[in-house]
């Protein structure tokens, strides 16, 4: 009886001891697995200063690559600048011409006021002539004005205006009975056509033998041309 109890105790004590041993064993195994096993991975790349060195080296390499890129970029930009400079040196002579051209084009478009010497042409309907039956034969038609305008343009007029309305390359001139419509605005006779340009050239172009003025006079229109040193044409007014 007592022997059995002792045996029981012994067995229980042994199993408790074993459990303690296994607890320690399991703890050590798991702990070392956790720390060393994880460290093992890091160990291949570890020693911290090696990592740092590697990091620094990579940073250095990336910086050097960036530097190289930037240097290339600088070289390309400098090449571009040289190109610009070359084109400047050749283009400088053209610039004055280009500015002049732009000014001329703007004048033709009528977006800036035109000031200078020029001619002023006045077209008046002829006085009533009892011989003529048809009144169409002695009033100013849009074709007459068109002829004058075209002639002036051809002779190099920089700006044109009819009764103060600027004529541009887009203008349209219409005959609407005894009046004329220019760009939607109606003007009665007499018509004053002003042109800025070389006044001598313009007036001599108008007065060519068999030219515009001659033909207008043949159409019974009173034409007066005067040269003026100072003609001012306002910019195109867009209100309609």
């Amino acid at each position, binding site marked *: 009886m007592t022997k059995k109890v002792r045996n029981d105790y012994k067995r229980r004590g*042994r*199993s*408790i*001891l*074993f*459990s*303690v*041993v*296994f*607890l*320690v*064993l*399991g*703890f*050590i*195994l*798991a*702990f*070392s*697995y*956790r*720390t*060393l096993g994880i*460290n093992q991975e890091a160990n291949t790349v570890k020693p911290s200063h090696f990592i740092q060195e590697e990091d620094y080296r990579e940073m250095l390499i990336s910086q050097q690559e960036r530097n190289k890129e930037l240097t290339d970029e600088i070289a390309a930009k400098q090449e571009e600048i040289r190109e610009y400079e070359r084109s400047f040196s050749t283009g400088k002579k053209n610039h004055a011409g280009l500015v002049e051209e732009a000014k001329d084009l703007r004048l033709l478009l009528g977006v800036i006021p035109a000031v200078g010497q020029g001619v002023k042409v006045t077209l008046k309907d002829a006085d009533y002539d009892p011989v003529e039956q048809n009144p169409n034969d002695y009033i100013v038609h849009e074709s007459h004005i068109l002829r004058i305008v075209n002639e002036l343009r051809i002779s190099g007029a920089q700006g044109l205006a009819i009764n103060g309305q600027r004529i541009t390359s887009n203008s349209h001139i219409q005959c609407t009975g005894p009046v004329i419509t220019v760009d939607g605005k109606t003007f009665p006779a007499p018509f004053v056509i002003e042109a800025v340009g070389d006044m001598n050239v313009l007036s001599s172009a108008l007065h060519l033998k068999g030219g515009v003025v001659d033909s207008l006079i043949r159409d019974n229109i009173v034409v007066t041309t005067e040269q003026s040193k100072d003609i001012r044409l306002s910019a195109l007014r867009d209100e309609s």
Partner: protein
Amino acid sequence: MWLPLLGLALGVSLGLLSDIQIPQIYDNYLSIAVLAALDTLFGGIRAYLQQVYDDKVFISGFFFNIALAAALAFLGVHLGVDLYLAAIFAFGVRLFQNIAVIRRIMLVKWTEKGKVSNTNEP
């Protein structure tokens, strides 16, 4: 019977879940402790198979070996001598010897069993 297994599971979970971090230089101690524990465990099994097993020897050997190995490694670190290598070597050799003995004993037992069953068969 289930108590040791419970202890093992508890120990493993404790080891996995514990948040203790040990300095890097003490990694060696840990590996030596593992080796010592395994060595003692297999030594116990061998002793049991050779019918020379004793509780006191096993328990004291288990903890004493672990402590000794750690102490040896600690001393080695502080003396600048890689003493933990000696511990690893000694424990490694003993581990292999123990396992070899266990294997032989098992082999002998198995062959004897086979002979017995063979003789019993007819």
